[in-house]
């Protein structure tokens, strides 16, 4: 469980998420100046993973539960967006419980739908898995993740193992989002909203109960509070936001694949959160950026990049107990000391 340090310099805590979002916002103009549009693609990937990692941190860092289901819920969101677009392209309605829906290529509809479906999945799986804790919780969420993964592989109608390509141009309430700049800033706006919402939750009584239950749930219970509904609510919020992020990834790359639902991807989200710092809301954004950039740089350098990556993670975890966010805190403290 993350230690919540109430003595962090307040301005640093308030400014850090704004600075992080501001730095990301500067990427498209920088890419334009450098003549390298690939940077926008990389930064978009950072944002999408950051949204999922920030959501995971609500459960992992603040509620103290290591979930390996995040990738499954992330993928569910992706498949909702891709399947809705696929049915528009095929001009073949989706039949659900006797009702026919023609599908949609409008992200204003399919992204919230992705969040709702992933949230419902999180509710059902959370009701079971949250009856356990520690390694049992980890194993159950891993099992659910793999069930979702193999469920996606079994969807032969939607590409099975090969994944599903989105062949219809996607829109956002009538806006064409194939423009990379436009899609980037839309994703960034969603990240900013996610940071704001998760930040408010963590600071509220709801968040206090989550953090307290992570320390000792019996003490919370003797204060008249059952931790279970709080944890379940956090799990559902986290899952819904992961679904939203998965929908964004599918929309951004016009493709969804079961590979993004594998439990190893869940492990990646855990690494992003730990690398960035579990005790802050914005730390996982830094972790996601470090993860994506290091993966890109190291894999272009050596095919054994994961070995080097592993060493870097070990070094960061051992030297900065609060993850990369600690660097910002150290800078803030030294600034405050002056």
């Amino acid at each position: 469980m993350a230690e919540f340090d109430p003595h962090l310099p307040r301005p640093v805590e308030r400014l850090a998420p704004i600075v992080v979002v501001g730095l990301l916002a500067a990427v498209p103009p920088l890419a334009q100046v450098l003549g390298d549009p690939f940077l926008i693609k990389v930064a978009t990937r950072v944002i999408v993973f950051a949204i999922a990692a920030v959501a995971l941190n609500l459960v992992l860092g603040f509620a103290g539960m290591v979930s390996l289901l995040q990738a499954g819920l992330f993928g569910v969101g992706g498949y909702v967006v891709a399947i809705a677009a696929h049915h528009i392209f095929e001009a073949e309605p989706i039949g659900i419980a006797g009702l026919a829906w023609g599908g949609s290529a409008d992200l204003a509809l399919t992204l919230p739908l992705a969040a709702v479906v992933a949230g419902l999945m999180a509710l059902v799986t959370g009701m079971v898995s949250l009856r356990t804790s520690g390694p049992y919780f980890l194993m159950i969420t891993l099992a659910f993740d793999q069930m979702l993964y193999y469920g996606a592989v079994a969807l032969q109608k939607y590409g099975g193992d090969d994944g599903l390509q989105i062949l219809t141009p996607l829109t956002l309430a009538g806006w064409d989002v194939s423009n990379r700049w436009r899609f980037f800033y839309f994703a960034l706006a969603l990240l900013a909203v996610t940071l704001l919402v998760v930040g408010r939750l963590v600071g509220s009584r709801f968040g206090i109960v989550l953090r307290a239950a992570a320390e000792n749930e019996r003490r919370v219970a003797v204060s008249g509070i059952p931790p279970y509904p709080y944890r379940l609510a956090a799990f559902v919020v986290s899952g819904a936001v992961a679904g939203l992020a998965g929908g964004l990834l599918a929309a951004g790359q016009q493709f969804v694949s079961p590979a993004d639902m594998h439990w190893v991807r869940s492990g990646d989200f855990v690494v992003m959160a730990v690398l960035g710092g579990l005790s802050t809301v914005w730390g996982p954004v830094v972790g996601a950026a470090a993860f994506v950039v290091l993966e890109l740089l190291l894999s272009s350098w050596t095919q054994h990049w994961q070995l080097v990556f592993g060493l870097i993670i070990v070094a960061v975890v051992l030297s900065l107990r609060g993850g990369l966010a600690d660097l910002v805190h150290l800078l803030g403290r030294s600034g405050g000391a002056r």
Partner: protein
Amino acid sequence: MLLEVRDLEAGYGASKALFGISFDVGEGEVVTLIGRNGMGKSTTVKSVCGLLRPFGGEIRFRGERIDGRSAHHVCRSGIGLVPEGRQIFPNLTVRENLVMAGRPRSGGREPWTLDRVLAFFPRLAERLNNGGAQLSGGEQQMLAIGRALMTNPDLLILDEATEGLAPLVRDHIWKSLDVLKATGLAMIVIDKELDALIGFADRHFVVEKGEVAWRGTTAELVADPSIQEAFLGV
């Protein structure tokens, strides 16, 4: 009666620690559970508070059975606990420790709010944004009591409330408890400081080997030194 415990049997796994404890607490009354270490006082508290499922017997609060209920249900029914070892949340601030436990009270006594707790323990108001781990032992004890008060209990159970505290701090805690008693709050107090308990409580239950070996008023306890000698090793 506010709380009635009848023939309570409880323990850990197959090991029985309570062999039919019976005691009661009236409205606004202060009682003590006294006895040597390992006699079953804390096990009794855990059973009453829903932290331990009893093997047998009955626990009634305001006439309603609460034995076997979960800890949060017991707390919501009106029983607050200041646990042994304080057990505050070290990674939460003082404010967060208190806010977390806050429950509204409808009717009856004046409700405990954050402001009222801070006025009751001004030291906590000074340390409001400090982490629990940064508090002294006495401050942690005040926080533990404040947290229990925030649940607006009708019965407050204090398990070793002054253990490990400096004499001056212990005096401060006892004075605070005197004020609470004056508000009409019923209490069960477990403590090793017999002199303070005698001056504070209305009735006493001596717990010996998982049973109540003696019960009586403060006057009866004071009048019979053999009780103190036999059961308390005083």
